[in-house]
C-alpha cells in the first residue's frame, strides 16, 4: 500500500465520514481512494469549487457532527489560510492533509518539498497555535492520520498532516490494526440541559464542550471575538480571554502532544534533527557514519508543532553540533537554532530533492562536523 492510500485508510479508520476537497497534484490519490471506499461506510465526499470552500464545507460538516477532513497541496493550503483561522476561532475539529510540493507558487507539482513547515504554523492571520504532524513512511501516514483525528477531537483544533509527494507515493507494507484495537478519542460532547448550554464555557483542559447542529441547543458561534455564549463582544478583555485560551490550550498541553523518535542519542556528539521524507535519508546517513566510528545520532520530529523545545535544549547541551537537513532553505532549522540557545553549533543542510535519496550531503556534513572537533 502506498502512503496516500494508507492516509485514506487511516482517515476512514479514525471515523472520518466527510471529505471536502478540490483536486490538486500530488495528493489526488487520497481522494480517489477515499471516494472508492466511502460508499461502503456511508461517507460523503464533495468536490467543491475551490479550496477556500473545501475547508469551509469541512468546518460546516464538523459542526453537523461528522468527523471531517480535506486534502490539499501547497497552493491549495495557501487558499485555505483564512479558514484555518476560522477553524481555530470556532474551535472546530478537522484534519487537513497537506501533501507538500516543491517551491513557492505552482513550483514543481510532482516533486516533493517541505517548504510549508512555517506556513502551517503561521499562515493565517492573528494569533493561534496549531498542531502539525509529519509522517515519514506509509505506516505513519496511517498512524498519524488517525492520531491527527484524535488530537483534533481532543483539542478542538484543525490539525495538519504535512506529508509530501515522496511519502505519498512510497509503497511499503502497512499494518492496519483491528477496529477494536484502535483507540479513538471522542469529541467532548455536552449533554446537559438545553437552556444552559454555553458553547465556549470550558474547564481545566481549556477545551469547551461541543454539540451537533440540529440537536436543539440553539447555539450561536462566530468568527468574531466572542464570550462564553458565543456572542460577539468587542473589547480587549474578551479578546484576551479568547486568544489566551486558544494559545494555551495547546501550549500547556504540548508535552502530551509532542512526539518524536530518537536514535543513538545517548552518546552522540553530532545530532541530526530531521522530519518527513528527508528523515529517511538522515537516519540512513547516521547509521552509515556510525559504522565509521563517528558518534552521531538522530532526532526525528513526528510533531513539528508544537515544537519539542525542551528536548532539543537538553540534547544541545550534550552534543557539539546539530545538523538540520531540510528540503527548503531553512524553516524548522530556525526553531532548532533558537531552542539550542547557543549550546551547540547548528548547521543547516539544504536538500535538493534529487539528492534526498542518497543523503550524501548529510553524511558530508556529519563528517565535516566530526573533523572540526
Amino acid at each position, binding site marked *: 500500500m502506498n502512503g496516500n492510500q494508507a492516509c485514506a485508510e487511516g482517515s476512514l479508520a479514525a471515523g472520518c465520514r466527510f471529505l471536502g476537497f478540490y483536486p490538486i497534484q500530488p495528493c489526488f490519490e487520497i481522494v480517489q481512494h477515499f471516494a472508492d471506499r466511502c460508499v461502503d461506510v456511508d461517507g460523503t465526499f464533495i*468536490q467543491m469549487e475551490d479550496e477556500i470552500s473545501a475547508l469551509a464545507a469541512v468546518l460546516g460538516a464538523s459542526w453537523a457532527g461528522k468527523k471531517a477532513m480535506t486534502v490539499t497541496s501547497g*497552493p491549495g493550503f495557501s487558499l485555505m489560510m483564512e479558514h484555518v483561522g476560522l477553524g481555530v476561532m470556532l474551535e472546530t475539529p478537522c484534519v487537513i492533509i497537506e501533501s507538500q510540493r516543491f517551491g513557492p507558487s505552482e513550483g514543481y507539482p510532482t516533486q516533493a518539498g517541505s517548504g510549508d513547515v512555517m506556513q502551517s504554523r503561521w499562515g493565517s492571520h492573528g494569533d493561534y497555535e496549531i498542531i502539525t504532524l509529519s509522517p515519514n513512511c506509509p505506516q505513519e501516514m496511517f498512524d498519524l492520520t488517525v492520531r491527527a483525528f484524535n488530537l483534533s477531537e481532543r483539542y478542538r483544533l484543525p490539525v495538519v498532516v504535512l506529508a509530501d509527494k515522496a511519502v505519498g507515493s512510497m509503497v511499503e507494507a502497512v499494518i492496519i490494526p483491528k477496529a477494536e484495537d484502535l483507540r479513538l478519542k471522542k469529541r467532548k460532547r455536552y449533554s446537559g440541559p438545553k437552556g444552559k448550554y454555553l458553547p465556549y464555557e470550558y474547564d481545566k483542559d481549556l477545551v469547551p464542550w461541543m454539540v451537533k447542529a440540529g440537536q436543539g441547543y440553539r447555539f450561536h458561534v462566530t468568527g468574531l471575538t466572542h464570550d462564553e455564549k458565543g456572542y460577539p463582544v468587542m473589547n480587549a478583555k474578551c479578546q484576551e480571554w479568547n486568544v489566551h485560551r486558544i494559545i494555551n490550550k495547546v501550549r500547556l498541553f504540548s508535552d502530551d502532544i509532542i512526539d518524536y523518535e530518537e536514535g543513538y542519542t545517548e552518546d552522540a556528539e553530532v545530532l541530526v534533527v530531521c522530519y518527513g521524507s528527508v528523515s529517511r535519508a538522515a537516519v540512513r546517513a547516521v547509521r552509515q557514519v556510525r559504522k565509521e566510528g563517528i558518534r552521531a545520532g538522530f532526532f526525528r520530529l513526528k510533531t513539528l508543532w508544537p515544537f519539542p523545545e525542551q528536548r532539543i535544549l537538553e540534547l544541545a547541551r550534550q552534543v557539539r553540533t546539530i545538523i538540520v537537513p531540510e528540503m527548503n532553505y531553512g524553516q524548522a532549522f530556525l526553531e532548532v537554532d533558537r531552542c539550542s540557545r547557543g549550546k551547540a553549533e547548528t548547521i543547516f543542510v539544504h536538500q535538493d530533492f534529487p539528492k534526498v535519496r542518497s543523503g550524501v550531503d548529510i553524511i558530508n556534513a556529519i563528517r565535516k562536523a566530526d573533523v572540526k572537533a
Partner: protein
Amino acid sequence: MDKIIEAFHDGINKSGRDREKMCMVTDIAYDPEVVDYLGVDLFHTNRGRAIAFATGMKLSNPNLILAVFIGDMATLGGNHFVHAARRNMDLFVVCVNDFRYRKVAAQETPGDFSRLEFSSYCSIEQPLNLPHLARSNGAVYVARWTALHHEDLINSMAEALPQAGFKLIEVISPKPELLEFFYLNSEIKHGEDTAKVGIEEDKKIVVGKFVERERETFIDAYNKQHYKVLGDKFIKIAAE
C-alpha cells in the same frame, strides 16, 4: 489543445491585430513553444486567477490586447469570470472545456459530461451552462465550438478579437478519442437562446455564435463618468 492554439494563431492573422501588443494569460501551463509560435507574451498565473490578472494588465495599459485562456472552466475563477463580464472588461476569453482537468487524473469539473465512462468516481453533479452565465452577466460575444470545428473557430476568434468588451468562446476539447464523438454529436444553431444550450446527457451539443452585441466597456464608462464630473482635471489612464 494544439488545435485550439493553431486556430488562435490563424484567428489573430485573420483579425489583423498586432501580436506584439497581445498578451496571453492562462491558468494552466502551456508548452513554452506556444510563445514562439504565437509571438505573444504569455503569463501563466495561479489557478483561477487569470481573468483577474488580465484585468489588472488591461487597466494599466489599455493598449494591450488580452487573450485569457482558462483551462479548468469557471471553478476557482468563477467569480472573476462573472464580475469581469459584468464590468465588460475588454478581455478575450477562451474557455477550454475538456470536461476534466487535464493534469489531474479523473475528476469532475462543472462542465462534466456525466457518465461518459463509468468509474467509481465520476460526475454526479450537473454541469454549468457557461455561455448562459456569460450572457446573463453581460458578455458582448458568446460562442461555442468543438475543437474540430476548425474553420468556424478561426472565424469566431477573428470576429471576436477586434470587438470591445468581454468576449467568450467555449471550446469543447476532451481527450482525442472522444473528440470525434462530440463533433458528430453537435449541431450548429447560431443565435440560440443561451438558456437552452446547457450540456446534458442524451442531447446534442449546441454550438455556434449565441450572442453578439455592444455594451460600454469598463474603461469607456470610467473615462466618460470622470470627464463628466471632473472635466479637464481628469487624467486618463495611459501606458507608461
